[in-house]
């Protein structure tokens, strides 16, 4: 009797936990969904004509239309390719330069001031110069994105390498690790958490810079869809492109977090999101 009651209690607790697992993320959807529903109703009731701010239903139709004709996929793929190429280049450069300047005081003194000065230049300022140097096609766009990705990765890696605990490094010394072994077994795992954060920050900037790049002379890409929508007076297309940006940005960020998670399970974190 008591056993079954206990079991029932356990089951109840389990179903409660299951509910909580789904309910908690769902909480994040509450605000945007409520806003969308509110606007849809407002337009339907004639409180607004919805021409400049299209209601969700119109955006959805535009989105599916673009997807059906294959336009959306083409543009999304073009943008994604640019971001991927720029991200890889930026991460590679940022990691290498960051590791070197973090490790060697001399190279830090030599290189860091210049890089910090370059970092404060607004991204758009580079565009005319890059177009002159690298032409109007892909190269200038990818380089612009790589520049955007470079700085957060550089800063993150450099800071992380500088702040690796001397006491932990001494453990490596006591066990007489060689240079490469020290990097692989002590430095790399120690900088991993900061590195993942800098990668995610870099990716975020990559998505920002791709729009800047595509605003200036592109015939494909989600940024082109934005400009096209503005010039032809199609606000629904603009919002559809923005939604596509949001989905792609969030998904790629999530992929990094997911890939990194097994390397960071050891972290003693204050809160788990």
């Amino acid at each position, binding site marked *: 009797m008591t056993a079954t009651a206990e079991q029932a209690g356990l089951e109840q607790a389990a179903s409660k936990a299951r509910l909580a697992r789904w309910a908690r993320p769902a909480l994040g959807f509450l605000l945007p969904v409520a806003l969308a529903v509110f606007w849809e109703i407002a337009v339907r009731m004639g409180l607004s004509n919805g021409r400049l701010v299209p209601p969700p239903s119109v955006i959805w139709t535009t989105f599916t239309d673009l997807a059906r004709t294959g336009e959306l996929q083409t543009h999304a793929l073009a943008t994604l390719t640019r971001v991927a190429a720029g991200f890889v280049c930026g991460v590679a450069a940022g990691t290498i330069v960051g590791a070197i300047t973090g490790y060697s005081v001399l190279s830090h003194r030599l290189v860091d001031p210049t890089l910090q000065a370059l970092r404060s230049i607004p991204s758009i300022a580079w565009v005319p110069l890059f177009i002159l140097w690298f032409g109007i096609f892909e190269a200038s766009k990818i380089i612009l994105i790589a520049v955007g990705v470079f700085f957060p990765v550089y800063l993150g890696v450099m800071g992380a390498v500088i702040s690796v605990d001397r006491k932990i490094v*001494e453990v490596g010394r006591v*066990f*007489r690790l060689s240079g490469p072994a020290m990097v692989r077994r002590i430095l790399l795992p120690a900088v991993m958490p900061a590195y993942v954060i800098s990668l995610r920050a870099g990716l975020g900037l990559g998505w920002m810079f791709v729009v800047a790049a595509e605003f200036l002379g592109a015939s494909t890409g989600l940024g082109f869809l934005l400009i096209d929508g503005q010039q032809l007076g199609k606000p629904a297309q603009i919002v559809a492109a923005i939604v596509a940006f949001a989905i792609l940005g969030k998904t790629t960020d999530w992929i990094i977090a997911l890939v990194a998670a097994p390397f960071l399970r050891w972290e003693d974190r204050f809160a788990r999101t």
Partner: protein
Amino acid sequence: MLVLDRVGKTYPNGVRALDGISLDVAPGEILVVIGGSGCGKSTMLRAISGLDTPTQGRVVFDGVVISEPHEEIGIIFQEPRLLPWLRVADNVGFGLEDCPKEERRTRVAGALERVGLTEKARVWPRELSGGQAQRVAIARALVPRPQVLLLDEPFSALDAFTRADLQDHLLGLWADLKPTLVMVTHDVEEAIVLADRIVVMRPHPGRVYEEIKCDLPRPRDRQSAAFDFAKRRVLAALDRSLDRLIVTDDGETRAAAGGGLWW
């Protein structure tokens, strides 16, 4: 045989931390170094470990001058210094990277069993208590079976019960493997529980002030009169090392007021 030959250390800022330390430590001996703060105990231990090099004199182990960490010399720090990204078993096996997998596993398991943490093998360091973490650090240092084990105030951050427990643990491990132990502490009782010989140091600059042989039979009863006597002797030596003695009217020497606060 571990030999310190007039070891001195002057830091770049001109501070002399150690001055002419000469000591011979026999294989299997437990040497405890005790002294007030700033007497260079830790500096000396770091010189023996090869993490720092002395500016004068030299440390010689089995005929080899120590200038960098030596494979037969292990060290346990005041903090456990476990690598947080490795599980307990991998932390313990950290120094056995070159070992065949099977041997490594059995040695790690053996070491964990000796420190009584077999069931924690798959746990992350963050999930351990302070005493457990320090036991893992001991296991990690002992797994490569070093001939010399250096301990830099390894139990000072722990509560009294855990400390006594770990002292007994350490003695058990020492009885198994008989490494040379050189331990720095500022706990007189700890020194007497463990030591074959106690070296009292005095500060500014760090020098050996007095050596006290400690041959109470093991296991040592912390409550016994002999233990208490030894404790008084060491305390008195510490007080003298800090010039805290006065001569009373009837010719007896006693510690000056506040003389007990030697640390």
